[in-house]
């Protein structure tokens, strides 16, 4: 009884691994040869079918993609201008803010100094000022005259 090719051997043949024993068997066995020819024919028909189905697809018109050398386009120019403005405006506003802060500090310092000056120039501390006024009132020239008249 003839041992026909197994499924594995048929796949092996189709892949291209054709040993001398396989070749000898295929040459001698009409049934296996027919089996292989049928499978090959089916695959050729499959190829033809796919070819026919996709054959009507014409390639689209090829347009060369826009070169990168045109990178200075309008949106890019606008972006660059905005970036430049920001770069120029930032240091200017920063300097103005520093100047403003310095002026504020100077003003606060001079106010403080004025307050210190006035505190130092007082003869007596602020809480004792009413007493000084009282002494001054008692020793005014009008009061002295009144004392003399009574005597």
């Amino acid at each position, binding site marked *: 009884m003839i041992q026909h090719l197994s499924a*594995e051997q048929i*796949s092996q043949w189709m892949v291209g691994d054709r040993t001398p024993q396989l070749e000898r068997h295929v040459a001698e066995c009409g049934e296996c040869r027919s089996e292989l020819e049928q499978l090959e024919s089916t695959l050729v028909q499959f*190829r033809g079918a796919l070819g026919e189905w996709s054959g009507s697809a014409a*390639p689209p018109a090829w347009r060369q993609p826009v070169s990168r050398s045109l990178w200075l386009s309008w949106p890019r120019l606008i972006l660059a201008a905005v970036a430049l403005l920001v770069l120029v405006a930032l240091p200017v506003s920063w300097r103005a803010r520093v100047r403003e802060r310095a002026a504020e500090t100077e003003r606060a310092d001079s106010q403080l100094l004025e307050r210190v000056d006035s505190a130092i120039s007082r003869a007596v501390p602020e809480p004792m000022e009413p007493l000084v006024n009282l002494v001054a009132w008692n020793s005014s020239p009008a009061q002295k005259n009144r004392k003399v008249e009574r005597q």
Partner: protein
Amino acid sequence: MATAVANSSDLDDFEAVVRLYWLKIFRFALASLRDRHSAESLAQDCFFKAYKARHGFRGDASVGTWLMQIAVNLVRDHARDRRLQFWKRARLTAVDLNTAGGWLPDGGASPEVAALASEQVAAVWAATESLSERQRTVFLLRFVEDMDLLEIAAATGLKEGTVKAHLFRALQAVRERVRKAK
């Protein structure tokens, strides 16, 4: 296999390259994705990528194999893109499996023979859908694009032995499906 153009200067006339290889890339994309619209889009992406990378082409492989390598990568990315998985079910331009046999070229065969051949083509088409992505790619490159094992290895980045193993398994599955269709 299309004529090899293994020189980067030959890519200068890119319009001619598109004309020469469009059908090959489109056919492979169509058989892989099973959707005409997606296949057209993938083929366009493939040529666009090739155009951008044309100065890096060293001519180690033919232009056809190089383009196919880009297409294989794009098909792989497409298969992995989960966002597309949802739309796959609802695609409008998908290939109808029932009409797969209807593509058969008219070879003047008898109606019985034509019907049987048509059924077998449909069986191959159905079988390729159930293959893994790598098995399908290797199968299509071998039996639709008529590339040899070394060219397939170059296009897929697989070793020749791995290509052979994938092809072997793909053939087993296809033959089993065709046998059942008889």
